């Protein structure tokens, strides 16, 4: 009978824990349905040599990052110095998906802030972005040697994110 007295308290504690966990989740981080699936195909003109095209299948056999960026994207400036630093260290090839951008603005932006990309491709109408489920630039995908998407990071890549999530994964995928 005494136990019954504690029932409301127990219910409150359970509810508080559930709601507390819920508060800690980030509703903006929509789980990507691509994890563990082949990277969606694309064949797009390169930003610097529009007469050349780059396809997702050209990148088989290596671990690479697909970084979705745009010159109009303010948060891209936040992560950009880190990307430039990574490319200087030759850590992992970074391919840029220049999302819904004017190529002239994009080229000017790279001139100004540095170009960390092995190659950037222009997705002017954003169709490839939609194929990759992009909804908040910048986004970064880790794609393995077999062309399978292993991880997606939404928002700027910070040094913490790089050290904690991306770098260990890249190392593991390289094997």
């Amino acid at each position, binding site marked *: 009978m005494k136990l019954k007295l504690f029932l409301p308290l127990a219910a409150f504690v359970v509810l508080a824990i559930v709601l507390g966990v819920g508060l800690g989740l980030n509703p903006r981080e*929509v789980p990507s*349905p691509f994890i563990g699936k082949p990277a969606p195909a694309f064949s797009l003109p390169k930003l610097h040599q529009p007469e050349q095209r780059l396809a997702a299948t050209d990148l088989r056999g290596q671990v690479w990052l697909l970084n979705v960026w745009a010159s109009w994207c303010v948060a891209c400036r936040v992560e950009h110095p880190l990307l430039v630093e990574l490319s200087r260290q030759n850590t992992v090839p970074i391919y840029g998906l220049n999302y*819904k951008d004017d190529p002239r603005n994009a080229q000017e932006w790279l001139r100004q802030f540095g170009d960390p990309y092995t190659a950037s491709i222009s997705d002017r109408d*954003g169709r490839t972005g*939609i194929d*990759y*489920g992009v*909804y*908040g630039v910048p986004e970064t995908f880790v794609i393995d040697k077999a062309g399978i998407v292993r991880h997606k990071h939404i928002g700027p890549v910070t040094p913490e994110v790089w050290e904690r999530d991306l770098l260990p994964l890249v190392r593991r995928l390289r094997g």
Partner: protein
Amino acid sequence: MQAPTRFLPLLIAMLLAWHPAAGWPADAQPTATDPVLEARVNRLSAELRCLVCQNQSLADSHADLAIDLKNQVREQLKAGGSEQDVIRYMTERYGDFVLYRPPLKGTTMLLWAGPLVLLIIGGLAMWRSLGRTTRRDETPPLSPDDSQRLNELLAPGPTRRDAPD
């Protein structure tokens, strides 16, 4: 009486400046060439969540991505795709999250059954507590003595309260 006349032209100007068009949204919707198609697009995009502003449907949202996705919906329906095709296209890219009515499956079981389970728990708790209250009201019948006293008290007749002040 001078102030009203002084402000009259200003008032008229303000009234003229107000025009119904001022309240219209800046970007006009793409002109509907086919009202039937447009109705399907709108109905379908009301079922899909805008990823940028998550509490709005694609139909309501004016975010760039929402407009792009709505155009996708329109294109695919125009090309003869079914509503199921469009929904598959969206969920392949953005997951079940884009659906305002998520499918019934293992991971969404709690979402679907949760309200019903809570209702049943609440209903049971209420039923039990109401049952207890009624039982408490079952007071034992009055003893003959008490009954008599009660009748005396309730009997009509002058009481102190009826006495004039």
